[in-house]
């Protein structure tokens, strides 16, 4: 079991460019979560899917961020017109269940740098 896979590990974009981050959850896990991590804000929840359906996107900046889960084997987080303040580590996690008792298994993250 390779764990949660995130690609790329590092991405550098210019201001105004688009960035697409990929996540492959652990096979059989029904929930997929996206987080953003910075030194200042810590670990911020962005969005999550349950059985591929979007459940809660309350943490997503509405205008430029979008997430999809077209099939059970991958999810994408897309950031349009990237800004320097989008620079962060984006973490994907999957879980065999949802709710407070469910352990989340995190990928290594994608470090996004916007110049």
């Amino acid at each position, binding site marked *: 079991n390779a764990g*949660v896979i995130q690609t790329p590990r590092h991405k550098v974009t210019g201001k105004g460019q688009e960035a697409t981050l990929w996540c492959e959850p652990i096979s059989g896990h029904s929930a997929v979560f996206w987080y953003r991590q910075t030194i200042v804000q*810590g*670990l911020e*929840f962005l969005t999550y899917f349950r059985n591929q359906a979007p459940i809660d996107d309350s943490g997503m900046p509405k205008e430029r961020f979008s997430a999809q889960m077209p099939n059970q084997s991958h999810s994408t987080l897309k950031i349009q017109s990237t800004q320097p303040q989008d620079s962060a580590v984006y973490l994907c996690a999957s879980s065999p269940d*949802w*709710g407070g*008792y469910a352990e989340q298994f995190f990928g290594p993250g994608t470090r996004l740098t916007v110049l």
Partner: protein
Amino acid sequence: SQWGEENLQALSIQEGEDVTMNCSYKTYTTVVQWYRQKSGKGPAQLILIRSNEREKRSGRLRATLDTSSQSSSLSITGTLATDTAVYFCATDDTNAYKVIFGKGTHLHVLP
């Protein structure tokens, strides 16, 4: 302590010492999970403690949960340099069926 509007906490101790990290939460929870994140990695669960458990142990780790004061703690005995990491507590968001992570405590264990 970590939670809410508090900034990331930082602790620096010598190898071999014991340490306790605290977490307080704002709303009722039935469970607290503790996670550890090492540099360059994603967080990984260390221990889960339920509201009907006052204490739970796993190796050198001991977690406590006090629902009356809405607080939890994680203790590590005989710390090692490899315990250097950021430690997060996470509670149950019952409305949204997800967990809410605290701000984290950065522990640095000096060899």
